[in-house]
């Protein structure tokens, strides 16, 4: 289940949030991020730049750290941790 990132952070879960979901990207992320332990991170795949900006703004306000932002084809990938 785990893969290593930067030799010190484990990806607890990859969340493909490119599709429609009733909880929405922030709702799905909020539930998962509350569960992670120190040294773990969540990788979120987002389908558009506006959603990526929403996620980054929301996470920053909630006090989560953005470990990585990158493009993956048409998608945007954000890695978050506590």
């Amino acid at each position: 289940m785990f893969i290593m990132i930067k030799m010190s952070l484990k990806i607890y879960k990859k969340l493909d949030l490119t599709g429609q979901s009733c909880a929405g990207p922030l709702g799905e992320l909020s539930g998962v991020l509350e569960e992670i332990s120190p040294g773990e991170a969540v990788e979120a795949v987002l389908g558009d730049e506006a959603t990526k900006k929403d996620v980054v703004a929301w996470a920053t306000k909630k006090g989560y750290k953005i470990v990585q932002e990158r493009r993956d084809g048409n998608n945007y990938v954000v890695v978050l941790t506590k």
Partner: protein
Amino acid sequence: MKRVIVVGGGIAGTIVANRIARTIPEELEKGEAEVVVLDKSDKHVYQPGQLLVPFNVQDPVELVRNERDILDHRVRFLHGQKGEVTKIDPANHTVVTADGVSHTYDYLIIATGSHLRWEEVPGYKDAVYSPWDFDSALKLREALDQFSGGTVVINVAKLPHKCPVAPMEATLMLDDMLRKKGLRDKTEIVYTYPINGIFGIKTTNDVMIKIFQERGIKVISPFNVTNVDPKNKVMESQEGEKVKFDLAIGVPPHVGAKVIGDSGIGDKRNWVPTDKFTLRMKDHSNVFVIGDTTDIPISKAGSTADFESYIIANNVANEIRGTGLKKTYDGSVFCYIATGVDSATYIRFNYANPPVPPPPSYVHWWGKLMYNKLYWTVTAKAIV
């Protein structure tokens, strides 16, 4: 002989077992395959109907039936200790039941559902009524019958939860019911939600929040509840809000089944890692996961399970028959949304297409009631 085991006889497990039985009737009758449903309980509860109980729209007696009566006659059903699964072991293609028997399978379908973890929020169980719990839905009906005005808070403790539109429905049915009783002027309704707005999908949120505004419903979001004081009737949030209430209606935190955690096959909330298109458990190609049990970012709803059952039933049948055909799930969901006790709208969407609810009408309310009534004879039996 190919054995298909379905763990869980709720909405998802029942529909998929019946759909497989209807898809491969000859193989079942010839003894070339068998479908077995395992569940501790021999009763089947239609949980979506619980939402209507507190508003005197639904008779709770109609929500419970014998599981055996709903399952196709070609499906084997084990319950009690014989059906209570204590361990799922995908590496060895077995499940173990409480009577100590180890059952091997060729294909496994995990349909163990979502469950309430009230204790995650201190005070919640003592202070908050929830239609997500059968007994609490009955108590809420009594409380609403006696309600004479005050502040009602509607709360969603955590996302995701089953029936994602239901908190909005409860709010709007409450508003309508209180208007019809002449109590709306004496009542403040406060809707609290963990993320901004009242619903996670923007296109739906934008339509529904206008209805909330027209009805004079106060929204506090984001609001992530941390504790509830049952004595003083105060709900507090991470954001520092304190809401005093006379009556609280809420959605407790949800988790996957205990057996998922005990078997070490889920994430930290016991959701099972699942491919969003194939609905196969990650790293186990002969294990499918359906309904609330998955960790897919999709709605935990009966209609989701129904849509998913077509994919799983066809793929299991295709593999048994060796046709090589494969179907994939497109994220389809359909949910009616009650906007009162005689009006409704709906959302229909998939991964690629967001939903925009049409204007509320009596026709959609009628559709919602019919959908519930037809569950027993059509949906659960996988007739269509």
